[in-house]
């Protein structure tokens, strides 16, 4: 492969969120990911781009999908990676976050990938660490790599973002995916509709430049993209909606309801899915579903981000 080089300009030490990135920067990541996608099609899926570089994967919150996607991206870039997870002893509870940061700094990593249940943790680490920090999800705040891989997937199928109508449905309040997607899609010129029960709708979200709907049918009417969000069981247990059964009746995506969307609409889900709660299996596994493409693209997008952050650091050094 020809490594993306030349006039690539990336000026950030960290990727903490989509908020703050402009359309050019988002486009740069997506273009770079395109080059890395090609690596996955080779028999030997490895490039030496990050040889000798150390990446720490710091997952304070359980994650299978995102963590393995990052790990695979790091391996394919030949980086040395080290994993810490919340259940392990390395991230013990008595330690303050700043203690953790000091300990990490002592290992001289080049990049730190962090997921945490509290918003702002990647930001705090970024302030204290010399290493670049990649936000792999901070509470209900942002999940920038997910939004980027979603955009990349939409582009594969629609060849554009500008002018598309994207409906995002589900537990909006607790979703970092939706916040990053709103920033990204509105920056790139798409129209975003948000739908879900009022009890799972954060106040004033329309100020983020979206329209708010309390009816699935209304939200997905003529939409080009329908993105379903995971509804966590604990939300129902905490009384935010009465039952999964009723949730599915009101906001579950079925083949029949999907007919209201544009004829060539695609269906997305950041995973893991609750079949029969937010999405019917017939849709999840059907021809309009691009859910597995999202997973495949995740690796390429994360390779692109790791690469860009290292390029920036090389320039700074």
């Amino acid at each position, binding site marked *: 492969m020809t490594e993306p080089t030349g006039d690539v300009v990336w000026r950030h030490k960290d990727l903490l969120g989509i*908020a703050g990135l402009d359309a050019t920067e988002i486009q740069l990541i997506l273009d770079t990911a395109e080059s890395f996608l090609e690596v996955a099609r080779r028999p030997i899926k490895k490039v030496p781009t990050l040889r000798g570089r150390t990446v720490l994967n710091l997952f304070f919150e359980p994650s299978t999908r995102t963590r393995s996607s990052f790990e695979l991206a790091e391996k394919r870039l030949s980086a040395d990676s080290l994993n810490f997870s919340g259940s392990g002893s390395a991230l013990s509870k008595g330690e*303050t*976050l*700043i*203690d953790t940061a000091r300990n990490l700094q002592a290992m001289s990593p080049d990049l730190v990938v962090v997921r*945490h249940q*509290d*918003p*702002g*943790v990647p*930001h*705090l680490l970024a*302030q204290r660490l010399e290493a670049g920090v990649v936000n792999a999800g*901070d*509470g*209900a*705040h*942002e999940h920038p790599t997910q939004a980027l891989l979603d955009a990349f997937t939409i582009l594969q199928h629609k060849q554009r973002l500008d002018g598309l109508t994207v409906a995002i449905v589900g537990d909006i309040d607790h979703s*970092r995916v939706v*916040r990053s997607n709103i920033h990204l899609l509105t920056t790139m010129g798409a129209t975003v509709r948000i739908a879900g029960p009022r009890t799972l709708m*954060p*106040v*004033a*979200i329309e*100020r*983020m430049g979206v329209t708010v709907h309390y009816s699935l049918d209304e939200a997905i009417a003529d939409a080009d993209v329908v993105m379903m969000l995971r509804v966590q069981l604990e939300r129902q247990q905490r009384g935010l909606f009465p039952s999964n059964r009723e949730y599915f009746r009101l906001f579950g995506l079925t083949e029949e309801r999907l007919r209201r969307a544009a004829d060539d609409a695609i269906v997305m889900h950041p995973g893991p899915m609750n079949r029969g709660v937010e999405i019917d299996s017939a849709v999840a596994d059907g021809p309009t579903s691009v859910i597995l493409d999202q997973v495949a693209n995740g690796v390429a997008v994360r390779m692109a981000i790791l690469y860009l952050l290292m390029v920036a650091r090389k320039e700074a050094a």
Partner: protein
Amino acid sequence: MSEPGRNGSGDGASVLLRGGRVVDPSQDLDAKVDLLVENGRVARLGEALAADQEIEVVDVDGLVVVPGLIELRAQLGEPGFEQRETLRTGLAAAAAGGYTGLGALPATEPPVDTRSVVEMLRAEAARHATARLHPIAALSRRLAGEELTEMGELAEAGAVAVGDGARPQRDAALLRRALQYASHFDLPVFCRATDPQLDRGGVMHEGEQSTRLGLRGQPRISEESVVARDVLLAEDTRGRYHLAPVSTRGAVEQMRRAKERGLRVSCDVTPMHLLLTDEAVATGGFSTALRVDPPLRTADDVEALLEACADGTIDAITGEHRPHHADEKADVQFSVAPPGVSALETTVSVCLDRLVGRGFLSLARLVELLSTGPARILGVDGGSLAVGSVADVTLLDLEREVTIEPRAFRSLGRSTPFAGWTLRGAPVGTYLAGRHIAGRRIAGRRVDLP
């Protein structure tokens, strides 16, 4: 600091403060007059007063002389949390911040729920003699919100108010009994109005910013619904209710109406809620110095609170001093940081510059909010320089420029949203019963910052 070990509230000193601008809202006075203090009491106010040869004369030309400022309520750490603040550091911080008195909140370990703790606090505070300490006792035993404390004995021992500090009263029946019972001793009942169930573990104001940041929000209805209940209880009991603090437009409007109906209610506000909004949490990059309780609200609330400060709905400004150790406050993420800041050494300058300097309040009104109002709520001496009053005095220099530098605080707390702010106007000295306490002591010359 001068002459530590002497209790300023005892035998008073004599001094003539000459040439200052005396601003005393209690007697509607704003004039360049001399202030003569004899034996710890204000003896005379007038132009070109002559002093006995015995008396020290201090030239305060160019300074403003006001009744000693009183921090209505501050949480110190002693006993139990001395890593956060001791009585010594807290009172020294108060004096340096321009205060001559301080209401001390009861959330210590053990809490201030028995006579012996009140007595211990008063005895310890008297040893330091930098500012008067007015204990605010717990409303409920162990601050648990279940059983009333022995308010009669607590008042006898010197407690000037009751309240459970930052802990809201969930049990309306307990609060009702507290308002009834405290009225036997004319104690105001301090309440933090919020509904923990509506707050759902929120760490900032619920609104656009909490939505953007993905942080749990505390809705304004949480404060406003509890204020509505509390005002009804105050009316029902005719008790003395003090809302500490008020932070939303809806809550302050309820207080205004309650006062119009003649209820015995009062409320305070913090400079943070008068000057900052929830947007600061976003622009401040999740700084834990902005984690305060109640949370920073919106520009609309700020507008309502400023109006209420000017029109008398709000009775006092408190810094809401609630210091923490850096390990628990600065080295952690926003969601787990405890609410509270170090405020004793920032409040007066912040108010002088941002409230008076920018025309939101007159200087006289600010003095009322920082001295006369707190004295009236707590029912303590002070808040006035009328002849015969205790001569607790604060000197202000309206021109002095200061930069808030937490590392230089006498307080052990270092977290403040005002760090780095450069402000015009500062306290430059205090007198307790005529005895010089804070500020450099240069007889015959203007008093300077230490």
